């Protein structure tokens, strides 16, 4: 992790390239985090990648219900020569959950982005094959959203496995 001062240095560099890209920084319990504008995620990530954070350790979604904008996409970047980590958080609204895909930078982000789409309904624009990865293809809703009603999932025994979603498997 960069320390609190190092985080500010990185944030200033990013602001130097585009003043509106960085929305804020947080340094909490040894973890450095930069909140970014979701429409400028590619530029910010490219810049950090040039700086050495060239490994995408994780990409995941968060639902901040009832805060707005509700959905978050978190990129965990790793600098493998300096052994340094940094988190990027981009918040998108529930009405228009769109963010650019980073598959052009890291092809390995294909499956994490599909999972984030599957669970939270975040649409990654430019993704080569954006469809559900864990849930059945005809599943309705996004199950990890906080307002998803739980307790109603059918248990598919042999006698009723053709009555519910996934019947054409």
């Amino acid at each position: 992790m960069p320390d609190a001062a190092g985080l500010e240095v990185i944030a200033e560099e990013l602001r130097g390239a585009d003043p509106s890209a960085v929305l804020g920084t947080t340094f909490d319990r040894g973890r450095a985090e930069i909140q970014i504008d979701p429409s400028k995620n590619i530029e910010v990530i490219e810049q950090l990648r040039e700086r050495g954070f060239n490994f995408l350790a994780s990409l995941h979604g968060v639902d901040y219900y009832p805060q707005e904008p509700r959905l978050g996409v978190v990129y965990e970047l790793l600098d493998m020569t300096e052994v340094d980590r940094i988190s990027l958080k981009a918040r998108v609204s529930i009405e228009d959950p769109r963010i650019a895909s980073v598959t052009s930078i890291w092809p390995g982000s294909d499956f994490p982005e599909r999972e984030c789409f599957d669970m939270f309904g975040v649409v990654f624009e430019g993704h080569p094959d954006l469809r559900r990865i864990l849930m059945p293809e005809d599943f309705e809703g996004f199950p990890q959203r906080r307002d998803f009603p739980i307790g109603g999932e059918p248990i598919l025994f042999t006698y009723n496995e053709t009555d519910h979603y996934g019947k054409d498997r």
Partner: protein
Amino acid sequence: MEIKREALPQEMDFRSRQLMSRDMLRGTLEDEDLERFAEQAVMTTTLDRAVAWAQGNSIYPMTFGLACCAIEMMSIVAARVDIARFGFEAFRASPRQADLLILSGRVSTKMAPVIRRIYDQMLEPKFAISMGACCSSTGVFNNYALVPSDKFMPIDVHVPGCPPRPEALAHGILKLRDKIQHHDREGWRERYDAVGTEEVIPGA
């Protein structure tokens, strides 16, 4: 040698009982005295209760773990909470030989039909313990993927905890023993139609 007979006190002391037993073994005890001896020496019970006593003292659990609770379940057969003291030590690897299914961990909607099938393959009398918060109420994994265990099978005992300590599970098993030996005649399984679900392979 002549045996001196005298009236026994109402509550016999140990010595007089000993004398009575000796007479009984010699065959010299007759009529009223013999009846009295039988009353005091023979325990009467019903076959149901005798069978329940035996069942409750030799429950064979199924070798079946689902998640982190299974680690606690494994340790109940170890030295500290040695469950073999009560006759439950033999974890059977086949549902056909097991009496007790301990659901130790979270049950996903995909695992639920599998567990139900294992439960159905067990032979009557069979019992189930739901161990830990996840299995009883989905616990910390309160999301779309999990299902509480008594939504799809009958559960005799719920053991709370996250995970429960081995002592808690041992207490749950002893509760189950108590239930089998004394209280299972309340017939909750019949009331909820939770009997007669064994899977029988036709022609086998």
